[in-house]
């Protein structure tokens, strides 16, 4: 059951990701990105990380991709038009991507993966919240400040003057 669910999700993720980078209508690309993000949330559910799954849907489906769709719809020249998905440097890109793939595969095969002990960390919302507020409070605050800076930056740029 677990394996079957995993393979269905994997096919969904890879298939929709492929659609995102190959389709010529950018609105369709954005919709497949939604499907891709949602299927990734399914993987989190399989791994019993429900909180992460819900947050994944909330942020990536509910906010990030909707923002992209918004940008597509507001950009006058893009709506309903087809765009090129390939630029003039396919050979260089292929070289870089394949070397990256080889490096990743090497790193994956050379690493000895430690299997977590039977109990492990419980991924419940309570535990996560406690960890963010005690052990990881500094990185948490730094991330918040970075996001705030990005927000202020976006407003400054969009005001223009």
């Amino acid at each position, binding site marked *: 059951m677990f394996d079957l669910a995993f393979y269905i999700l994997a096919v969904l993720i890879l298939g929709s990701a492929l659609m995102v980078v190959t389709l010529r209508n950018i609105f369709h690309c954005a919709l497949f990105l939604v499907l891709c993000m949602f299927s990734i949330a399914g993987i989190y559910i399989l791994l019993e990380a429900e909180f992460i799954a*819900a947050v994944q*849907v*909330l942020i990536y489906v509910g*906010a990030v991709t909707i923002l992209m769709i*918004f940008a597509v*719809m507001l950009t006058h020249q893009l709506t*309903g038009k087809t765009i090129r998905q390939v630029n003039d440097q396919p050979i260089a890109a292929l070289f870089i991507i394949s070397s990256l793939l080889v490096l990743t595969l090497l790193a994956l095969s050379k690493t000895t993966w430690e299997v977590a002990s039977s109990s492990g960390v419980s991924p419940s*919302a309570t535990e996560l919240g406690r960890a963010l507020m005690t052990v990881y409070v500094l990185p948490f605050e730094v991330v918040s400040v970075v996001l705030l800076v990005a927000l202020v930056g976006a407003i400054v740029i969009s005001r223009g003057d």
Partner: protein
Amino acid sequence: MFELEGIFSAVGDFLASFLGAPLLQIVSIIAVAGVVIGFLMVLALFLVWWERKLSADFQVRIGPMRTGPHGVLQTIADALKLLQKEDIVPLTADKKVFFWAPVICFVTCFLAYICMPFGKGLIVRDLNIGILYIVAITTFTVISLLMAGWASNNKYSLLGGMRSAAQIISYEVPLSLSLLGAVMLAQSLSMVTIVQGQGGSFLHWYIWRQPLGFLLYVTAATAEVNRTPFDIPEAEQELVAGYNIEYSGMKFAMFFLAEFINMFTVCAIAATLFLGGWNPPFEFLSFIPSWVWFLGKSLFLVFILMWFRWTYPRLRVDQLMAFAWKFLLPLAFLNIIVTGFLIYLFE
């Protein structure tokens, strides 16, 4: 004695007596989904009729009267008419997206009910992320509205879709934050735990400890389901009908029913988080089954939303955005800070 929990478990035992374990699981999943979806469809038909009768009352008319006593069967007749209509797809529409938009809208509006406590022990699955799951899964409505608005290839539907999406995203922030107060009091995201935390008399309901949270939630929820005074997405005078202008027949019916089910969803969430869910207001009233209390409280909130709709005029777009970001959002943050401070002080 009229609790439905016993009936459902009896049916489950009966099925288990002659079905094997894997088959039983499949059959029970289909049966539960059928019961929930059937109930919600009937409820949506009722809500459409109720809205028409209430609007008639507010405008000193009598509303539908011909089909059935006081017109109760009118919506069924209308639904049958819509199902028989020819399926019209605009020539310049994006056919695939045009088809999938109402499907996604209709399917996802039922998903929130997976962890909705209808009554004592009457819940499909008590997820431990309960309320967060509901907030997350309802974001798909926005995508379906955007898809409908874009795929129709019509300037009015595009504008309607954009307005809906902008409004729903903006009001989702104060909406989620206003729910946090109740979650902090219950110390849990699970819907069942939140309801159990409000047991006893009506004085234990979270509305008394979260009055600001409740008001913020009802306001943001009204905007979330695109109802007056926040119904700019379908402002008839400027946009004709909004995102669904090109839809007719069954696809239109799907959007329409989904809208009413979404309205019930936000009211059911408010009833569960702030009005004690299926708990009776007094101990001695507990002979009335819990699902009656849940339905009664939710429908009362639905009535308030309908009352808003036929009483208030519509806000302007700029007023709408300013209201969400400059008024509701700071109040929602204030509510969380004060709630956290008080919990720290008293516990």
